[in-house]
């Protein structure tokens, strides 16, 4: 069945429907990772997004039950060049398309994804609509597309109830802004006893729990929409607990201390983002999946110093707070799954908490 993607600037990309054929409007972002579509789709960070895979052959190894970053796909849509109708891999449990259909994820294949990516790169991220029936009134549809805004993203993905995973190591409170399994596993693999709290948990509750450290997770959406969370986060961070922030957690912690965030033109999404450790000068290749960044010089050096910078656009990729107890990074520190190049950040967190027990 023919389908098309209509961007808010009026550009139209024809293709074929895959997965759910329900029309949908979402923010269209491109990701340059050459593998890992299942992880990307199931990452809570992807909520409300239509993901364009720049790699043209998608679905090659199907979908399995082990590699999801959460219980379900969160992305709203998937846009690919060529879909493999069946997956080939020893762990493959089903093909990508039927999995998308089951979760009601709208998909479109046969799209000239490189042209689409170039447009998103040059114009910045845009909203778009995927539909199998051309809109009768294009102007109306475009207005609708432009008006789309993702709201309450964090609330949508954060857990409803606290969850607990036992462990012999330090006790970590995780503020779930949209955490991925890989991050949780990075803590659990190191023996941490992990308790996950909903995003709107009060500082009081967490601080009362006698935790050794606080982990502020990644999460989706515009950080500006989380302003109401900042006072509680500030309180949590002001307590003398070691804090490790990642992604949205990194941004909210900076904001809580007076920093500002800004939107990147088209985000950092992919597996090849080089960041420099400002202390050692060494560069690590990281996986990233974010659209906002902490603004340069928006945070006083008396509060925090920049620990990592992106060597391509000089954006802030990490902060170390001057009290020596708190640090945060913008990239995916576990680089899951892959080279454990920045896994030592978890070890640092553990050390701050007094080490493994």
């Amino acid at each position: 069945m023919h389908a098309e993607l209509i961007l808010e600037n009026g550009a139209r990309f024809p293709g074929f429907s895959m997965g759910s054929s329900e029309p949908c409007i979402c923010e269209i972002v491109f990701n340059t990772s050459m593998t890992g579509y299942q992880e990307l789709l199931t990452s809570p960070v992807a909520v409300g997004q239509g993901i364009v895979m720049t790699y043209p052959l998608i679905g090659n190894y199907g979908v399995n039950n082990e590699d999801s970053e959460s219980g379900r796909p969160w992305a709203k849509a998937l846009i690919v060049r060529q879909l493999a109708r069946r997956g080939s891999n020893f762990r493959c449990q089903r093909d990508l398309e039927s999995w998308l259909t089951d979760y009601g994820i709208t998909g479109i294949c046969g799209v000239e994804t490189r042209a689409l990516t170039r447009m998103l790169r040059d114009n910045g991220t845009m909203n778009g609509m995927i539909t199998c029936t051309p809109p009768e009134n294009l102007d109306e549809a475009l207005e609708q597309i432009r008006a789309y805004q993702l709201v309450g993203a964090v609330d949508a993905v954060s857990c409803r109830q606290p969850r607990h995973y036992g462990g012999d190591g330090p006790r970590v409170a995780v503020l779930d802004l949209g955490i991925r399994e890989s991050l949780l596993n990075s803590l659990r693999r190191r023996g941490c006893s992990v308790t996950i709290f909903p995003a709107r948990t009060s500082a009081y509750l967490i601080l009362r729990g006698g935790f050794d450290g606080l982990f502020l997770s990644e999460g989706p959406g515009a950080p500006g929409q989380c302003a109401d969370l900042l006072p509680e986060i500030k309180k949590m961070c002001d307590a003398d607990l070691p804090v490790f922030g990642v992604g949205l957690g990194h941004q909210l912690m900076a904001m809580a201390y007076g920093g500002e965030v800004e939107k990147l033109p088209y985000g950092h999404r992919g597996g090849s983002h080089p960041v420099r450790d400002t202390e050692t000068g060494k560069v690590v290749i990281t996986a990233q999946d974010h659209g906002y960044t902490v603004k340069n010089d928006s945070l006083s050096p008396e509060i925090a110093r920049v620990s990592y910078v992106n060597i391509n656009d000089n954006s802030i990729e990490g902060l170390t707070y001057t009290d020596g107890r708190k640090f945060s990074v913008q990239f995916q520190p576990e680089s899951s799954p892959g080279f454990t190049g920045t896994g030592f950040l978890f070890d640092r967190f553990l050390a701050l908490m007094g080490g493994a027990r």
Partner: protein
Amino acid sequence: MPLDRSLKKVLMIGSGPIVIGQAAEFDYAGTQACRALKEEGIEVVLINSNPATIMTDSDIADHVYIEPLTVASLTQIIEKERPDSVLPTLGGQTGLNLAMQLHEEGILERYNVRLLGTSPESIRRAEDRQGFKDTMEEIGQPCVDSTVVESTEDAVAFANRIGYPVIIRPAYTLGGTGGGIAYDERSLREIGEGGIRMSRVGQILVERCISGWKEIEFEVMRDKVGNVITICSMENIDPVGVHTGDSIVVAPTQTLAAKEYGMLRSAALEIITALKIEGGCNIQFALNPNSFQYAVIEVNPRLSRSSALASKATGYPIAKVATKVALGYSLDEIPNAVTRTTSACFEPAVDYCVLKIPKWPFDKFLTASRKLGTQMKATGEVMAIAPSFEAALMKAVRSLELNVQALRLNKLTELSDDEIYDRLSVVDDERFFVITEALRRGITPEEINVITQMDIFFLDRIHAIVRMEETLAACEGLPDAEMLLQAKKMGFSDSYIAQLCGTETTVVKELRYANGITAAYKMVDTCAAEYAAATPYYYSSYDKENEADVPDSGKRRVLVLGSGPIRIGQGIEFDYCSVHSVWALKNLGCETIIVNNNPETVSTDFDIADRLYFEPLTPEDVENVVRQEKPWGAVVQFGGQTAIKLAKAVTEMGVPILGTSSDGVDAAEDRERFDSILRDLKIPRAAGKTVFTTDEAVAAANEVGYPVLVRPSYVLGGQGMEIAYNDQNIRSFMSVINQTVQEHPILVDKYLMGREVEVDGIFDGEDILIPGIMEHVERAGIHSGDSISVYPPLHVEERHQQTILTYTRQLAKALGVVGLINIQFILYDDAVYVIEVNPRSSRTIPYISKVTGVPVIELATRVMLGERLKDLGYGVDLYPTSRYYAVKMPIFSFEKLADVDTGLGPEMKSTGEVLGISDEYPVALLKAFSGAGMRVPKPHGRIILTVKDADKEEAVSVARAFVNMDVEIFATAGTCQTLRDAGIEARTVSRVNEASPNILDLIRSGTVDLIINTPTQGRRHDSDGFRIRRYAVEHGVPCLTSLDTARALLIVEKEGSSLHPQPLDIVTLGKKD
């Protein structure tokens, strides 16, 4: 860590002659490295014995030595040039081994020369089997169960413990020479013995056979401060068991989920970190398709064939970056040459699919075993880029120049289903054709997967191609626009669609244009469009958006057609010519466009031409580029037969051919037209006839008189050419060439056994310039590419030289040549005969350019653009003879190709060449022999002499010369009798079929220095001569098959220790005194 300022002068070691396993990729790597060094203001000293390379040009390095790649000559050069450092990792295994030897023998230390980049300790740990295993164990990386042994006994003991089959890999060899899979003790002993002998250190690795696992490669890079990146992942479609050089390879990996990919990527980065590599490195893994189990197969701590492929596949200039890293830069200090805004410290993201297919020499060696295994057999490769696997595959298949449009071989369509099913388990060069045929017959991907163990993903993709074939074949008449577009997106050529639909190519093309279905070009930008890039490196797709930017520069735009994959008869020399032509055109103010499909070459580097189109060299693919670029003219005479074949098509596209027209090419190749030109000019040639059938051939041969030379017209490298002495020879040979369809006639010529002479000339319409006349050591009958060639000629009298000059000028004029012409002559009976005329560049151009200092390609290019030779400063007619002798010696790869007869004849067999230069002929000859790795028999040494009857008389003088030098001669009965009759002392050795000890035992004993065996006629593989020659190859004993070569060796031998070869900087040669 910026540039180390103490570096002033760097020695680069090249990889030597082109052999199977070490081809043009090292010219590409070395040239890029030299340019990177010069960019930093560092003086470059280069040594390479291969004159056909671009790196040995005086504008690439500051000091160029075309000298034997031996420790002795390197030591001399180091002593003379006193470089402060050496860059060892860009000259292939040859360069690396030499650098290690220089280090081990203390020579580097003596002259205070530093090894740049990866340290010798690291190289040893990566290269030495045991050292490598220990290192892997330390960092917890799994290897395959294996052991390093130095004797077959130990190998057998180990195999008995871990069980058969086992794989044998010799240490320090290239292309897996001497390796193989042993299924039982007998085969293990056989392969093991050979492997130990071939290894430089007498070691072999015996390992558990994991054939059937996925073979995955990573190209990784590390700098001094420890930054590590992966540049490209590659997946061999052929599972473990087929050498990666013989595998069809796709990049990036296609069937690995993120977890497996991440696991292997981590492993690769951990390995390069543990080995402390500083530069590029290739790591090969085997991955169990049914689990996370993997094993590290091999690490190459240097640039390799795969790095060249990875470079071209991603646009990441690995050789350049590796060089800068060796100079001390860290990766983040090196700019990304593609985006120019980001740094080299990143991992390329691609948004297309890349496919490489090897080019095998089996069309040349009809009798060779086509089976593929751990021993590489391919001479070259093609690469294709497309947005889908299907299109990449179709493009790559077209690029192979196999006269097929798709994976469809007529001979397979005649096989029964059962036969096809059986063929699936045969691992040879035709397996992909068989698989596709099987899918056409309805054998399912699942069944094929069980037999071939190729991943279902790939089989599904090929199946999709087959389904498209069926859809097209089923449509009544022409496909509709939608279907046509889908077929084009899948990479189907117009002519294949036409073939399937039963119509003409032009009809499909017109339908396509009528529906606006045209090729669009996409950029290779290293970053999947994430950053804006300006690389002029493109591939075609059938998409809407066209990214190729054709700026209106006001310059004349010239299309240069490349020469495709390296094969026997069309080697690296044509890339040399193409690249030089591009440079010359640029200097003349033209804008240049290259079309080529060979990832190993310099010409496919994106900073050579103004724009590079990585495309198949077929009329349709070239026409698409022409529509895009609308060139002012096209250059076809530098790209070998591949480009020449396209001359007519390009003319029909309305693009003027610069230089000789396609009609001139036709006149040289069309027998009748050419004969009439010779008649008009009264230039003699051997009597001959044009025939189509066997009976006609026999009649023609009897008319001109035996012996005759029989060959198809329109071929390169003397493909399918033979000397026939009687009717029987003709009949058997005709049955062989008729196996392949002949649309062109067969030529039967009187065979003149004289001295062969070759010239390259530049003609501007009126004047000719011949840089030099070259004489062949071997008499006519041995292909010019396989003969030792000597410049200046030793035996061509002045008057004959004048005749050659006159004939060349006359022929060039008559054929309408503008640019290059290559002519082969025979001096026979005190007269000059023409054998063959090629109105194009030739194999000898690079070498004659270097030794005479005449920039042949530049002059030819200028002439093509209308300049006159008179005005170019090099004069006309015969260029003054150099005071240096240059001897070009052919290099063969026989040890890689089982069942190929090593006897030389009119069919070309060599894969590469080396050059020896000196002001004394014997020294030049000695350098050439030593560059070719030929040992000269020592006094009191032993040789075996066994020649065909026709040569017996001549053999006497050769034998006498050896005996006079105290060399002991063994001969088979007939030859021995002849020698004794002539009063020469010789010992009889029993023939092949006689009881031990016979001649084969003598060869195996390792006490023989040289074998001289001249082959009798015929292609029989059971002949004694064939077995002796193969046995010699397999036991590493040099074997000469022409008495002329033996005589040349005697010249060197006679002078013996009185020869003192000195290295010669060829940059000084061309300079006028």
